[in-house]
């Protein structure tokens, strides 16, 4: 009897594991389908007499990118200062404080700026995408779009994807500049290193590849944020509470995927 019950609970657990695996695979497939459809609409929209509107793209770009400029600037500046503090502190042990410029330059451009921007955009805009799509779904607005003859993928998803792909790399460049500036200012005060010398040295040590790494990452992050935001949005069920749940899920999922993708990408880029 006990053994039978044990078997049953074991079976249930395996069943649940299997179910979760299937769901995860299904969701991944769904995300790729959403991305695929958005891309198809971007390319074929005009031929189908439903081109992706520039006005929509600008609206999204404004909300996702331009409005994020102040906060990205502050955060990346702080990261730069933080790196300078830690770098100088660590390098002091070897008496090599002046090498801090190299450390800041590489870690900001390759790692911190894309990561901070990715996480921030996921929190700001990934959540907004999910909440917006979810609310529209619950209020039958998505149905309304479809019966008016407007494909929601073309009208909502495609502009979001384009705006993300343009704005996230731009924000990363801004983040690079602000991070380096933060590092420069702290180093300048701490080591009496003039700004001009700092940036000269930064130019010397930085190669195109460092910045490119960050930019390529940022494009991957942009795709992740859009796909996760959209798929969670379109899966909202259960009213206002459902929207809240999906939004939280979207942010957590996007940030986790960004960090994991960053790790994998960094590993391959630095071999």
């Amino acid at each position, binding site marked *: 009897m006990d053994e039978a019950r044990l078997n049953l609970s074991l079976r249930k657990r395996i069943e649940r594991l299997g179910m979760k695996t299937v769901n995860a695979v299904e969701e991944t497939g769904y995300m790729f389908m959403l991305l695929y459809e958005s891309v198809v609409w971007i390319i074929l929209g005009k031929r189908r007499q439903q081109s992706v509107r520039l006005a929509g793209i600008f609206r999204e770009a404004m909300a996702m990118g331009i409005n994020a400029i102040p906060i990205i600037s502050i955060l990346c500046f702080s990261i730069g200062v933080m790196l300078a503090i830690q770098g100088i502190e660590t390098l002091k042990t070897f008496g090599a404080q002046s090498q801090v410029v190299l450390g800041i330059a590489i870690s900001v451009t390759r790692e911190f700026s894309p990561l901070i921007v990715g996480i921030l955009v996921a929190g700001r805009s990934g959540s907004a995408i999910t909440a917006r799509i979810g609310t529209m779904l619950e*209020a039958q607005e998505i*149905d309304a779009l*479809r019966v*008016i003859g*407007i494909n929601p993928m073309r009208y909502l998803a495609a502009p979001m994807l384009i705006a993300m792909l343009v704005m996230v790399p731009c924000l990363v460049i801004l983040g690079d500049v602000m991070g380096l500036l933060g590092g420069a200012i702290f180093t300048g005060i701490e080591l009496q290193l003039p700004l001009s010398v700092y940036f000269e040295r930064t130019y010397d040590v930085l190669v195109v590849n460092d910045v490119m790494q960050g930019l390529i990452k940022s494009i991957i992050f942009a795709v992740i944020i859009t796909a996760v935001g959209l798929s969670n949005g379109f899966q909202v069920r259960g009213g206002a509470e459902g929207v809240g749940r999906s939004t939280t899920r979207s942010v957590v999922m996007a940030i986790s995927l960004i960090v994991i993708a960053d790790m994998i990408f960094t590993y391959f880029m630095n071999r």
Partner: protein
Amino acid sequence: MPIENHTVPVIEVKDLVTHYGRRKILDGVSLKIHQGEIMVIMGGSGSGKSTFLRYLLGLHKPTSGSIRIFGQDITEMSEQQLYELRKHMGVAFQGGALFGSMSVGENVMLPLREHTQLDEQTMRIMTRMKLEVVNLAGFENLMPAELSGGMIKRAALARAVVMDPKLLFFDEPSAGLDPVAAVELDELILQLRAALNMTIVVVTHELDSAFKIADRITVLDQGKILLTGTVQQVRESDNERINSLLNRMPRDDAVDADEYLRRLTGYT
């Protein structure tokens, strides 16, 4: 209004069967709706009337059966063909489904903007004309959140008819409205038909409204059509379910003791 019309019906549904998950929602629904007629689809909650509407709109693919609109089977259409068809259909959803991020005017203008090449001024004039029709003149710059329930429904109606569709669907026009607003909306539906000779399909559970506007009524119950007929025929029907719906009596289902126990205990 001509009830019997020998031309091709605007909507012809044959043996429609649909499922939600494993549950069967519509079970062999067949229906013809003719040009210029106001057909009311009536039924209690859970009767499948809202589901029926969603399938008529081509929002889902049915399990089996066919839905012909203007003679074309929408269950076998490509997205592109549906897109063309939808230019001739207008839909007013139950909650209005106005886009919260746009003003009333922009909402009404959206179909024009997406489907036509008209210049801005012409579109604006057409929008104002439709807003006049639904008595919302001067409200075009307000946001949907600033409107009352009745105004939202009327704005949704304006958006639905802005392209002068041949076919109009209206989901629960009087739900959630005070009696006066509900009657006004009924009047509006009748006027629209008279002015534009549209075919109108209204889904509702409101008896007064149904009897007032309908040429014919279809009564749905548990996914099946109980009766399709004129207002008179529905009133005179001796079907028990229809009578209980008409007299607002609670459903009196036969109790199956075993089934009841199974449901309570959860053992299957």
